[in-house]
């Protein structure tokens, strides 16, 4: 049985429908990507999973159970808007939040020390949050979300505002949690993170789930229509080849072509080889970024 099962949930705010018939399941040890433009219904969905608001229709199951206060202790949440008590010591507030999730003070203290050790910041134990940099506050916030070893973890924009080193650190940690069997709902605007971490995704557009499934399958649905080619010299006449829609010259050499079908790639290769040696030739599958923009962006006014 999957730890988290969302079944055809619908939520209306007045006469506006915020989430329309969304269903998905998250297995143990899986990171599920919840994508969508701003205002698409991601936060509402997460709030429903967290039990802050009840869906109008449909239901959400946690290890097969419906929502109750007992489920709170197995949920972890990292909200998009970060916040902690600025004037209270790190140890004090993490322990408070852990206790609210049903941990004993002693266990919370032990776990906190382990986590601080892991993030290589044990000296923050007695510091006030306002004394920390933004990135470090975020680490503390992350600890607050996971300290009670939740079975279901909801990460809303987990890596925003972090420097690349810290992004790597948190990404590794998230992967470790996944490998430890946590079900993670992951929302972000950074598609490369989704591609790296998520097995299945849902793209929400104006409250509706428009694209759903494993990333691999989704990508197969979208034609490979990008070709990269690099040669020593200049390549002439690429835009004359039938089936090529657009040619972009990259800053550091190489051309990126938009084509009608993957087959056009072969005629491009032939055309380029006629002009000299080729350093690189690749027919690329579409990136999630492109898929996202295509799904969500094209219908934008």
């Amino acid at each position, binding site marked *: 049985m999957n730890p988290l099962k969302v079944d055809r949930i619908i*939520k209306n705010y007045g006469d506006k429908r915020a989430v329309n018939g969304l269903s998905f399941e998250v297995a143990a040890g899986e990171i599920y990507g919840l994508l969508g433009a701003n205002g698409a219904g991601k936060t509402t969905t997460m709030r429903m999973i967290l039990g802050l*608001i009840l869906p109008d229709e449909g239901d959400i199951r946690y290890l097969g159970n419906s929502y109750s206060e007992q489920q709170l202790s197995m949920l972890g*949440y990292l909200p998009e*808007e970060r916040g902690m008590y*600025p004037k209270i010591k790190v140890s004090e507030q993490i322990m408070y939040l852990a206790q609210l999730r049903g941990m004993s003070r002693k266990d919370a203290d032990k776990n906190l020390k382990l986590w601080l050790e892991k993030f290589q910041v044990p000296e923050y134990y007695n510091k006030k949050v306002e004394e920390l940099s933004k990135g470090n506050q975020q680490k503390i916030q992350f600890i607050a979300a996971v300290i009670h070893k939740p079975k279901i973890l909801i990460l809303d924009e987990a890596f925003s505002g972090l420097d690349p080193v810290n992004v790597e650190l948190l990404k590794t940690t998230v992967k470790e949690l996944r490998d430890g069997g946590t079900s993670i709902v992951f929302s972000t605007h950074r598609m490369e993170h989704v591609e790296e971490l998520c097995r299945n995704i849902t793209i929400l557009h104006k409250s509706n789930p428009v694209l759903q499934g494993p990333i691999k399958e989704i990508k197969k649905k979208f034609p490979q229509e990008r070709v990269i080619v690099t040669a020593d010299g200049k390549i002439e006449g690429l835009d004359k080849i039938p089936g090529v829609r657009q040619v972009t010259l990259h800053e550091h050499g190489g051309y990126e072509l938009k084509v009608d079908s993957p087959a056009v790639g072969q005629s491009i290769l032939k055309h380029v080889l006629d002009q000299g040696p080729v350093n690189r030739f690749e027919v690329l599958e579409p990136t999630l970024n492109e898929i996202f923009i295509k799904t969500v962006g094209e219908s934008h006014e």
Partner: protein
Amino acid sequence: MNNSLWTVMSFTMRNKLRSKGFIIMTVVLALLLVVVGNLPYLIEKLSGGSGGATKVGYAEGQQTQVVEGLKSHYAKLPEPGVELVGIASEEQLKSALENGDIKGYLTFQEDAVAGFPKVTYNSKSAFEGGTSSSLTAALQQVKYDTVLDGAGLTDAQKAQLHAPVSFQTQKVSFTNEEGKTEEEQGVAIALTYVMIIMLFMAVMITGQLIATEITAEKSSRVMEIIVTSVSPLKQMWGKILGTFLVAMIQIVILVGALVANLSLPHNSDILKNFGFDLSSIDPLLLISAIFFYLAGFFLYATLFAAIGSIVSRTEDLGQAVMPITMLTLVGFYIAIFGLNQPDSTLMVVCQYIPFFSPFIMFLRIGVAEPAWWEIALSIGILIASILAIGWLSAKIYRVGVLMYGKRPSMKEIVKAMKAYKV
């Protein structure tokens, strides 16, 4: 899961008790109350301690009959408040006052119609209440004597004339066997007055504190994590109870400081002279003080919590709590004005209005004699409205904590309540 209620409570208390602002405020207030507690002694020391009579000058040779009369009047008193000092001439009076030899001086002006001179007391300050009233009484006596001298009355008759009318008011009580005497009444009024002020301040300060804390949690966005860890209702009550206990601790410290100092021997003796005995306070009054403090606190605290929950930024809080502040102020002022007319219709009506009744009912118990059913009805309404308002506030709180941006209107809150199904 009552654990989490306790967790919120203890967290709230720990942080409040540790905060510098709280400690400093408590210490300062306690010191202030220590001074207030010693005030009776200090006043006694400063005024009575100067060792007797105020020196009042007069120009020798003027109105000798009146001056002699005054002198003999003061000579008869066991503790004369005024000592008459003769100064050679009228011109020297002013310089004597300037030098500080005398506190003031008398000048006379013939008044043929009254048959007694007009007397003016000249002093550095126009507010010489004690001295001038003593002089007025003395002069009245002298005038009586002057006039009566020619009427051929016996000394006994004179003494009868001089004796003041004996007049006392006594409040009729229907519950106790004895009515309260005027002195007891005075003590009750003073005590009620002090307690109403304390009630008002406690409600306002703790209420504001609760609202500020909740808004601060909301604006720092900790709220989002907290409401996903513990039910908003428990969080709200944890916060209210935690702040309440902190307020109790503070009140105990402050009242303790005041009472301890007032009951020190040197203070309590003086207070007893005024007919003010701490041990004579009606225990019923204390019990009702505690009850109405609790009732007032919870009534307003839940309201403050609800308001705090719908405001996103601390800056907007002052404006948002304005209506409640007004409500408490109205209740407070009705109570203060009602001290003199505890039985007026306004008071009788207001004792049933939940937002005012903590003040008004308490006041009426203190200085009037409301019937038991009046008290019961008032308390019943109060408790019912605490429950109703607590329930409503919890609902508002539930949706309020998740609403960010501009302060939502009543309509938006109702809409959100429907949407959130709370």
